[in-house]
């Protein structure tokens, strides 16, 4: 098949589920420079480290330096410490105490004094000091100065102890203030960092969601291709098979399911009725009808389900997960009855492909409410092959492979 496609100038076809190096054929993507380098014999440690750091910053999404984060945090801190609600002088004191070393100077010596036994008789003048000392016994005849001296001495000690206590308390308070401000600052920095990371992660989630959406659409396109291409191919090579023994039952039309294509006759095969995909149900509209632009329910012969099962969707889909047959399960139509009436396969083209040539098929336009895809790989439209069976326009690197 791949060779055949190459002869026709088409993109070689490779089975989606194929593993191994030739999965993408000749047009596999080129390795990014960093991967190319890893395969080289010569490696440069600095280059590798640069690449690692570049990868890390890409992963973080928003690449801000530590300095920038700190500046951002400082602005946030300003916003938190609103001067209208917090006393500015207190704030300033906090700020100063965070950066400045703690003042451990001793208490002011002016307030601390010592009072000894000789203090009462001291004088700057040596003569006066001498005379006082000389007359001290006389003075003691009038009153006893010792209790006074002791009291003053004790008071001096008390004063010194109080000053020391106060200095220690101030020092501790300053340390606590510094610690509190530091903690606050670091918390805000961490919050800023975390919010930046959250932003980066949310952007990444968005990107991943877009990728998931894109993949789902591609899967849908593949499924529809499978269902519609096979019966059409069979009509050219063999007489139309007999319809299923079960007579087609017109499906009860619901307002939510108006898009059953004309000519599609539903088959009442119980097997076909059961073999539905769970994932598809999830993509339907709330009323149970397929979304606009999506393929009609199921067409084809009883082998259609098996053919669909051939498509390896890399484990993304619960493939052919049986459900209990409900009485109102849709019936399958016979492929033979469908084939003559549909000159072109009535599949919905993959919305992420380039439009096929008009003479090959007329794809239903993409529903307007679908999100725009993230830059699909361009696929050349398959040229019309009048000799062959009408081949569906295959999505890029996918298809039945049969």
């Amino acid at each position, binding site marked *: 098949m791949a060779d055949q496609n190459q002869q026709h100038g088409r993109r070689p076809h490779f089975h989606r589920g194929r593993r191994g190096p030739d999965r993408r054929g000749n047009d596999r993507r080129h390795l990014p420079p960093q991967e190319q380098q890893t395969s080289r014999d010569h490696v440069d*440690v600095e280059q*590798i*480290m640069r690449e690692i750091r570049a990868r890390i910053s890409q992963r973080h999404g928003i690449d801000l330096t530590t300095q920038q984060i700190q500046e951002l945090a400082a602005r946030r801190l300003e916003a938190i410490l609103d001067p209208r609600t917090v006393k500015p002088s207190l704030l300033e004191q906090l700020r100063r105490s965070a950066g400045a070393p703690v003042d451990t100077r001793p208490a002011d010596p002016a307030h601390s004094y010592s009072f000894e036994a000789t203090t009462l008789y001291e004088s700057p003048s040596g003569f006066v000091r001498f005379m006082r000392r000389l007359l001290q016994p006389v003075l003691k005849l009038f009153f006893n100065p010792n209790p006074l001296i002791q009291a003053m001495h004790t008071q001096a000690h008390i004063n010194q102890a109080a000053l020391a206590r106060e200095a220690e308390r101030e020092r501790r308070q300053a340390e606590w203030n510094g610690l509190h401000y530091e903690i606050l600052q670091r918390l805000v920095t961490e919050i800023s960092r975390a919010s930046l990371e959250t932003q980066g992660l949310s952007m990444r989630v968005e990107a991943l969601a877009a990728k998931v959406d894109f993949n789902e659409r591609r899967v849908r396109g593949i499924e529809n291709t499978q269902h519609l291409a096979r019966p059409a191919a069979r009509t050219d090579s063999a007489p139309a098979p007999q319809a299923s023994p079960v007579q087609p039952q017109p499906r009860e039309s619901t307002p939510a399911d108006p898009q059953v294509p004309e000519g599609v006759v539903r088959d009442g095969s119980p097997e076909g009725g059961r073999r539905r995909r769970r994932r598809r149900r999830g993509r339907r509209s709330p009323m149970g009808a397929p979304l606009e632009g999506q393929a009609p329910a199921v067409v084809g012969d009883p082998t259609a389900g098996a053919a669909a099962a051939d498509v390896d969707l890399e484990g993304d889909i619960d493939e052919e997960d049986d459900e209990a047959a409900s009485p109102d399960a849709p019936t399958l139509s016979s492929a033979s009855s469908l084939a003559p009436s549909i000159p072109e396969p009535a599949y919905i083209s993959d919305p992420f492909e380039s439009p096929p040539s008009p003479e090959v098929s007329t794809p239903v336009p993409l529903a307007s409410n679908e999100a725009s895809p993230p830059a699909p790989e361009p696929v050349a439209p398959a040229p019309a092959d009048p000799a062959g069976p009408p081949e569906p326009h295959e999505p890029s690197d996918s298809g039945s492979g049969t």
Partner: protein
Amino acid sequence: MKIAIVVQRYGADINGGAELHARYVAEHLAPHADVRVLTTCARDYITWRNEWPAGTEVIGGIAVERFPVARERDVFDFRDRSAVVFNHDHTIQDELGWLDSQGPYSPSLMARVRQAADECDFLVLFSGRYHHAYHSARVAPHKAVLVPTAERDASLGLAIFPPVFRGVRAIMYNSFEEQALVHALSSNTHVPGVVVGIGSEIPAAVDPDRVRMSYGLKNPFIVYVGRIDANKGCADLFRNFLEYVDRTRRVLDLVLIGTAVLPIPAHPRIRHLGYVSDTDKFDVMAAAELLVMPSPYESLSMVALEAWALGKPVLASAKCDVLVGQCLRSNGGLYYRDTGEFSAALDTLLSDSGVAAALGDHGRRYYREHYAWPVIESKYLEMFERLRTIPPTHVMEPLPNWMARRRRSVAPAEAVVAQLPVGPSRSTPRVDNSRTTDRATVDAP
């Protein structure tokens, strides 16, 4: 030629960095010279307790003379003195007191060194920060060949060391980063110096499968070899590794070899083998995906060199200039600054076998060219020959006088070290030291 190697401890079962270094040098110089080792009776580098008998014995064909330590280290006194000289303005006398407190204080060893200075051509002094090396250098500066094993720790900033760096006859550096540090600290470019490093006894053949079987190492693993200590960066290693394991689906174990000082997290992915024989150590390293080296302070990582000799890449901490410099010069290892880089670098090495193999090959080549024993021996012998032919051109500065030694004018050692240049050196190993090293300015961690 007669050479006396003076080292703080010596023994076949001592695996400390400088001591092992001294033993290797002694054993490899023995075929070329009459080598004698002068050391203490201590086995423990914390207390310097005398555990070996004093006297002469022969270890590995080398005559080893042991001298008793006169005073064990008082750890509290040493701590207090360290706090003073590292963090506060202090005096030269404080530093000398700190050196005495650190030890090993052995007057008999110093007396023997004085005597050996007359007998021998050269005294090879190991570990400049210790008491014996400092005073030996001052006793016989014209014969002192210093192996400083200097690291970027606070003791390097003490004011008593720069005169020694300027006054010894020659200096054998372990790495270009160490050389740059000592040059910046003491402006001693006039002193003959060479970056030598140290080789290792790499076995001719290793058997990784044997240790995989014997230790039950079924999963791929990375290995850490050395003392399991917070000072060696092991706490960071545990945190980084556990975060990596939490994030990845890769099956990877961390195997630890060495004595545990730090509690090891009880995690199924962390295996501690304890102290193992050299054979087992090399086999485990050969079985590992890579060697991880989280230490922020290294003057030369012998384990990293051994890993490179076995063709294994190294993942080193970028906090250590020496390790980063070795990784850059060898092109044989990656380095990390934080958990993110640890994970990314580890992923690179584990997921791309081409890179890991190429780094390992570069490392092996680097080891062979610069750290194989013939290279090391020739560097030592060339230096000795050079010193024998050239008379000494400089003298050791004397200690300040009594008053000056007691002047409180010496800056805190931490502050001095903080002003030293940082970053790995890009210079390629060479013998001549006339060219200054090119300090990294780009991509320096």
